[in-house]
């Protein structure tokens, strides 16, 4: 079997494992989705209940919420690998580290996409948001989520096992996600008719960031899997 096939097979196995655990434990649905709903409400309290203000800031608010949710989801993934020697088992499984990284990233991607769909529906209903530029919205969401998932798949294993990882993870992850947040917010503003210029250069920047994180994650997954 070629190396690429081995990597992809490992990725599918790990992604399947992580998604099955999430489906059975229902942490995403029982903890993260209610958290997202609370944040959507809080934004309205903090800014203005006037729909115009919320609609104007909707793109940024959407991605701030996604980034906060991502911290929770990554935290949860790191915690899972610490329980019952799961990380040790993964290390001894003989799976290709790049495949493990891609699998973890893919699972994070799926979980975050579910969060984003629910968040989008909540914002459309509560903020009276009118969706325009659907193609730009969807492509931005997919590429930005892939970038967030890739960064999360690097930083999750990196903080696993560290004392005080709950506070260290946001400190490490949020600065890395800030460029993603910026580009995705601007692209969403354009798609929602609030921004100026074209949204596609922002998507290009998101793609570049995603590429950087995927390459770095694949290259560093071996040492991280061995040592953490």
């Amino acid at each position, binding site marked *: 079997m070629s190396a690429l096939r081995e990597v992809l097979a490992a990725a599918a196995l790990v992604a399947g494992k992580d998604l099955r655990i999430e489906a059975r434990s229902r942490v995403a649905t029982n903890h993260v989705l209610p958290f997202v709903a609370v944040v959507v409400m809080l934004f309205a309290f903090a800014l203005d209940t006037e729909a115009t203000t919320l609609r104007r800031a909707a793109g940024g608010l959407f991605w701030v919420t996604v980034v906060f949710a991502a911290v929770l989801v990554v935290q949860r993934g790191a915690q899972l690998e610490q329980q019952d020697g799961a990380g040790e088992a993964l290390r001894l499984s003989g799976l290709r580290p790049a495949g493990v990284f891609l699998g973890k990233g893919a699972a994070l991607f799926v979980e975050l996409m579910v969060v984003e769909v629910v968040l989008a529906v909540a914002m459309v209903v509560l903020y009276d948001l009118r969706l325009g530029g659907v193609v730009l919205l969807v492509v931005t969401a997919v590429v930005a989520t892939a970038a967030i998932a890739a960064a999360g798949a*690097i930083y999750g294993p990196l903080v696993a096992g560290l*004392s005080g990882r709950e506070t260290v993870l946001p*400190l490490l992850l949020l*600065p*890395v996600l800030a460029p993603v947040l910026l580009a995705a917010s601007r692209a969403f503003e354009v798609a929602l008719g609030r921004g100026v210029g074209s949204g596609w250069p922002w998507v290009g920047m998101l793609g570049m960031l995603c590429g*950087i994180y995927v390459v770095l994650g694949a290259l560093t997954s071996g*040492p991280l899997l061995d*040592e953490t």
Partner: protein
Amino acid sequence: MTDLPTPTHPAPVDSTGSRGSRILGAIAAGLVAATCFYAFVVTGPDSQLGETVRILYLHVPSVITAYLLVAIAAGASAFHLWKRNEFSDLLAASATEIGMVFLGVTLVTGMLWGRPTWGVYWVWDARLTTTALLFLMLVGYAVVRSLPAEPRSRATRSAVLSLVSLALVPVVSRSVEWWNSLHQGQTVLGTSDAKLDGAQLFGLFLGMVSGPVIAAWLLMHRFRVAWLAERAEELGLDAAIAARRLEAGGDAAGATS
């Protein structure tokens, strides 16, 4: 009772200095003095930037030195992930720490320059913002280094963090073009028609030489401190093991008597 080995203590070290570091320090001090002389005595205020041009003699060298140190740290980190030796890990940690200081100086001097130029200390300009983000990433690196962990594991985590920091540097440097920045464009190196006159340019280049020389001097000392700290940690471990052995030996002797 068998004789137990006692830990050997190396000769105490009272300085991280050496002949080489003292020479380098003297050169750095001379370059700083020359830069100050050019910045405050030889050159006058700029026709466009006024007196604020003097901040650039510190701001530009500090940012270049900071990027250089981040690159050194990333190179050492990549080498560490490949060869796994202590030298590269400590070099990366030392370079990141000093880079963080230079990046802090860059941010502060940038804000001091921004106040008279833009009217505010901080604008959400792309280059400023991403430089601040890079600074925060280096702070994160320092936090991870400070957490208690097994040295090999800590070195691996730090190396990965350092590489990700380097990946952000191109985004920082190109951010002016990408995000249509308000920041002062490339004034010295980017265009053929530099806007600074000859003495100003010379002063700036003196600063750009002295920054890396100071960084090299600091790096030499910081690396030696880190190296000694590792040795002290090992010594503490050896002493603890020897103490446990002595205790065990004493218990065994007590049990047989």
